[in-house]
């Protein structure tokens, strides 16, 4: 069971003009794993997410999701297949409440036509009611049920991040991509986030790929880590291996020490 491959990237490369943002990235993620993607700023981590979710089309290489080549497919189609993501800079729908934000994810699962929606025919109202229940259940599990009818963007920062994750979960993904989920969080909030990520992984049977700068989060929950620097993969392995890797220390942790 745990050996089932969820995501595989082969020689993934993208060039913007003369700049190679990511080159020869080979990821191999099995079911249930939490994998970290780290690297200094501008290393190409978010670009990598954008390729996996279809926002960018890779110049070279393939992305294989559960045995299917998804290279170059449209983002909404990739979401339907079961890859969901959150964004580095929170992208909530500002005009909507928490519940409405989550309900948007259910729109594609609606098996009814616009006409049925306008006329409130049973197939539409039944599906909507069921989605509403599912979303309320989800909000309860992530601890946002009490603010369900508040504007999403009026929530405190930590809860906004949590709402973004909830919104991604509502699309019923098998693979969840988290782009810096702990950005701007204090140690205690990061700890809560780590527990939360582990909890949803077990609860929904997810596989998670995350970008993160907080080393305690990455080392704490990731089983495997890939380190990028200037688009190149400089190390891959378990947290212990990465921590002792000289090249990583030089490229990444070294600079952190200098700054400190």
């Amino acid at each position, binding site marked *: 069971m745990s050996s089932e491959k969820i995501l595989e990237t082969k020689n993934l490369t993208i060039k913007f003009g003369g700049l190679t943002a990511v080159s020869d990235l080979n990821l191999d993620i099995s079911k249930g794993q939490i994998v970290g993607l780290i690297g200094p700023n501008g290393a190409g981590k978010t670009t990598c997410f954008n390729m996996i979710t279809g926002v960018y089309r890779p110049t070279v290489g393939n992305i294989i999701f559960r045995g299917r080549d998804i290279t170059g497919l449209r983002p*909404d189609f990739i979401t339907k297949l079961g890859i969901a993501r959150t964004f580095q800079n929170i992208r909530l729908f*500002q*005009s909507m409440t928490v519940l409405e934000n989550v309900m*948007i994810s259910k*729109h*594609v699962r609606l098996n009814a036509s616009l006409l049925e929606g306008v006329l*409130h025919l049973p197939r539409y109202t039944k599906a909507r009611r069921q989605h509403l229940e599912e979303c309320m259940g989800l909000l309860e599990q992530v601890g946002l049920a009490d603010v369900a009818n508040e504007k999403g963007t009026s929530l405190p920062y930590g809860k906004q991040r949590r709402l973004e994750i909830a919104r991604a979960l509502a699309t019923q993904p098998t693979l969840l991509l988290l782009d810096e989920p702990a950005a701007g969080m204090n140690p205690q909030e990061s700890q809560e986030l780590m527990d939360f990520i582990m909890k949803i992984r077990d609860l929904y049977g997810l596989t998670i790929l995350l970008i993160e700068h907080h080393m305690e989060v990455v080392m704490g929950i990731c089983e495997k880590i890939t380190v990028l620097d200037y688009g190149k993969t400089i190390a891959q392995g378990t947290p212990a291996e990465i921590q002792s890797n000289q090249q990583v220390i030089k490229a990444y942790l070294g600079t952190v020490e200098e700054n400190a």
Partner: protein
Amino acid sequence: MDKQKRDIQKQDIILTIIALALCALLMFLGENFLSRLQLRILNLAAIYVILGISLNLVIGFTGMFSLGHAGFMCVGAYTAAILSMPPATKELVYYMVPINPALANIQWGIIPAALAGGVVAAIFGFLVGFPALRLRDDYLAIATLGFAEIIRIVVTNTTSITNGSLGLKDIPSVKSIWVYWGFAILTILILKAIVKSSWGYAFKAIRDDEIAAEAMGINLLKHKLLSFTIGAFFAGVAGALMAYLITSIDPTMFRFTFTFQILLIVVLGGMGSLTGSVVAGVLVAVGMEWLRFVEQDMNIFGYVIHGISGMRMVIFSVLLLLIVLFYRQGLLGTKELSWDSLRKLTSRRSKQKEVSE
């Protein structure tokens, strides 16, 4: 909880029926007691309401800055006019170049012809939207503006179908307030249902953040095209009604300035508020008429100021500037008038009363 919700739903339906009955009563009174000019202004207001809310769906709810509304109106107006004119009138009107024989003997009823106007405009909307909606913001505005001009020029030059720059005269006249406000109320009800449905939220999601909407599985092009086509349909219907109201149309009517006027309604009422567009639609129609005095000669203490035609548009342009500068959210912002909001308002009032007592 669930029972309470159902009770509220039932209450809403009853209230809506009462409100519709009230509208019917008002329309009945209007039809019988208002002067012809007043009726005409009210009917024009209904057309402006349809135009305003349909453009608001596109601009305010889906966030697509389209300036092609007058073009779709033009398509609707010509389609409805050609379909509804009696063959004998057609022979008289097309005196320079005879009408295409395929169209010469058609005579449809007024309402089917108006709906056909909407459908043809929607087809045009779909065809234009398919390539153009890949663009965003200013680029989309330029593309749709260009389209509206193309339509106008095509209409001017396809003389055997549209009678070219001579325009069409003696289009069947419709004076009944029931037709105009009937269409307007139906449009309001349909668009409100769309906006409140899952699709309405999908449109708003696209407006708020395209990238996030796509990541939530919403097919951008499909939904934008849907919204754009619905907007074009109602613009077409409004164009048809315009043809029946004025009874003569020509290509110059549907210039960019007309789109600008509809845009004024949307901005004045509030982008993203159907209620706002309804209120603003009526205000602009009545205001345009009321402001006619500024274009006439004025005698102030023996000093005569000569009227300048076009002065009304200047006033409206200044109004638009002021709104954009100082009151960007418009009359209603994104708020809607609904039974729910009224209920909240009255309960707050009564609570305040309790406190003050």
